[in-house]
């Protein structure tokens, strides 16, 4: 068993997915270090690394968001890192796609936009994917490792482009993209009673001036994403390519695994390839344990040394407690494995007692991730 090393060799995009708090960022960074050490020109797109890990990767500066930094310490300059700016994802989208500086400023200054842009669906996720496509098209890297944004559900990341495409659905947006008081709106309200009702309600609810601003916003937005549907199609093509592999990061906890199970099903249904599963923070039961009880072994040992009865009892109790954790984790992981197709590689990383925050720490994970 070679762990994930085979997957790293055979793919040019690896997407690390999973729910929050399971060590996604660290795992993504560690995989990237491994790839660079094995000779691949590699970049890791990271989202929200712990400060010391960000330092180690040279991306501590928020202003470095969007540009790649070379990690000199690893693999002779073959490793780069990039931190995505979580804030202002929509501002970036607008700046990138606005047909003219005037339109750009008009949108960015719109009151409706300013207050609510953070709430637009899927902007962070979409920006991450757009960045991924750009890096991929640049051809500068043999492997791109993507750390996905913390979403409520791991799947949000994959659905973001489609949701955004729906949001900008021309056939519907066109209702909004005309000056609010224009003749066509008035006509519409008479022709379609439901629409008329809706807009009367909306006017009551929001005040007319606010609605004018909303309408202006959509007017400016139209034309912003001229070939957006085409981009979304290309994004999904990349995500479905046989050279793109998904690695699910999980911890062996009931709630996390429930979510993970759903993710595995959906990734398959979306035609994307789940290649590996990483269990982080695993407690392991002692393998092949038999014979005497812990307490008896310690009792026997304590003859003729400084280990007194109390100490022995405390040590034995602590050990048995961890064995219980290990048993539980083992059972849950085993049940989860049964759901996976046999060609999905599964690896286990133990629950390290220290935070991984430097290159050496990332390398220490390779033993478990890549059996190296």
């Amino acid at each position, binding site marked *: 068993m070679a762990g994930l090393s085979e997957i790293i060799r055979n793919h040019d995009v690896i997407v690390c997915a999973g729910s929050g708090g399971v060590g996604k960022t660290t795992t993504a960074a560690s995989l990237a270090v491994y790839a660079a050490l094995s000779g691949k020109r590699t970049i890791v797109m990271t989202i929200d690394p712990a400060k010391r890990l960000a330092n180690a990767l040279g991306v501590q500066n928020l202003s470095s968001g969007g540009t790649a930094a070379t990690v000199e310490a690893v693999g002779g300059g073959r490793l780069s890192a990039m931190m995505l700016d979580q804030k202002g994802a929509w501002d970036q989208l607008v700046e990138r796609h606005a047909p003219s500086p005037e339109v750009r400023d008009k949108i960015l200054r719109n009151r409706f936009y300013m207050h609510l842009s953070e709430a637009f669906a899927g902007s962070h996720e979409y920006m991450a994917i757009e960045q991924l496509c750009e890096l991929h098209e640049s051809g500068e890297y043999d492997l791109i490792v993507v750390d996905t944004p913390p979403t409520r559900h791991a799947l949000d990341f994959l659905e973001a482009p489609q949701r955004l495409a729906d949001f900008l659905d021309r056939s519907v947006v066109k209702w909004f993209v005309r000056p609010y008081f224009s003749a066509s709106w008035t006509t519409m309200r008479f022709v379609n009673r439901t629409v008329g009702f809706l807009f009367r309600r909306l006017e009551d609810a929001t005040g007319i001036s606010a609605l004018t601003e909303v309408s202006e916003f959509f007017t400016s937005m139209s034309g912003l994403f001229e070939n957006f549907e085409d981009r979304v199609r290309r994004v999904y093509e990349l995500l479905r390519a046989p050279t793109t592999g998904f690695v699910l990061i999980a911890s062996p906890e*009931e709630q996390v695994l*429930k979510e993970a199970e759903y993710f595995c099903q959906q990734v398959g249904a979306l035609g994307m390839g789940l290649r590996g599963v990483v269990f982080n923070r695993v407690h392991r039961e002692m393998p092949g344990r038999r014979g*005497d009880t812990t307490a008896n072994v310690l009792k026997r040992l304590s003859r003729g040394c400084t280990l007194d009865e109390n100490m022995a009892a*405390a040590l034995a109790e602590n050990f048995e407690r961890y064995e219980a954790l290990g048993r*539980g984790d083992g059972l849950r992981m085993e049940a989860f494995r049964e759901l996976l197709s046999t060609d999905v590689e599964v690896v286990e990383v133990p629950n390290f007692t220290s935070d991984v925050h430097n290159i050496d720490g990332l390398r220490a994970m390779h033993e478990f991730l890549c059996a190296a």
Partner: protein
Amino acid sequence: MATRRTSKSLLDRRLHVVVGKGGVGKTTVACALALVGSKLGKKTLLAEVDGAGRAAALLGASPGALGEAKPVRPNLSVMSVEGTSALQEYLEIIVPVKRVLKAVFESRIYRYFVAAAPGLKELMTIGKIWYEAERLDETTGERSWDLVILDAPATGHSLQYLGMPRAAHDVFRAGLVGRESQRLIDLLTDADRTAVSLVTTAEEMPVNETLEMYAKLRDELQMPLGAVFVNRVHRTRLDASHLAALDSCSDGDAKSRDEPLLTEIRDRAREEIGWAAINAHYLERLANEAKLPIVELPFLFAEEFGAAECQQLAALVEAAVVSSARRQRGRA
């Protein structure tokens, strides 16, 4: 300053919002608080946002329909709240004509609007919570709930939820949305009715995020704060002397036969001592930087975390709530 007020003990306020990073046990703490509330004789509602029925499961029950309170124990109901169904419910209240509503719900523009309108789901979710917190029973005229516990989404998203009324109010000052948003802001910032508690583990990333969240809640959202629940804390009576003693035993006949087991015992002891040190370090940081009561909850060594473990934590939370109430009385 309203946020500094500590005139009430932890569960005396009607709305208790529980926030925290993913994976730290936020839902567990919310469940424990709800159990305590119900045991103290309060009619308690535990509302879960986009939670897929986790809270109900932890209380040993199956989830009910979206937006419906499902009784799970005496004095305790759970509810899954989601923006789209909350909006539908809201419209049913303000638009009495069913036939018109049906046409609206079925129209493409409505569906588009609901899916795309920024912040609408968040706003409606908070609106639904407000409705439950303020609601009066139709027959008795009393409050439907003495205590509403909101299990908010993971940190970043909960800021989006809790900040939405303010954003909506700033955009739509006039009109219904502006007025309704103001009522939500009033509730969320009222130290007599509301408290927000943070849940974290005593580790680097969760503590960083908790302190950031703490500052944002206090300064940007100006919400009254409750306590910090520090979950999964390792405390151990093991220390370096145990390891040294164990090492001193490693000679003699028993060694070879027992060596694998001894190695494991030593490794697990190191692991526990290591976690206890990390947890102590970050507990201290929290105590120094967050000016809030800290409720420490132990790491539970269980094969499986279920309803029994939740009850165990609830007992500890209850002790903390009761002692905080006692301190309040002592001061008064």
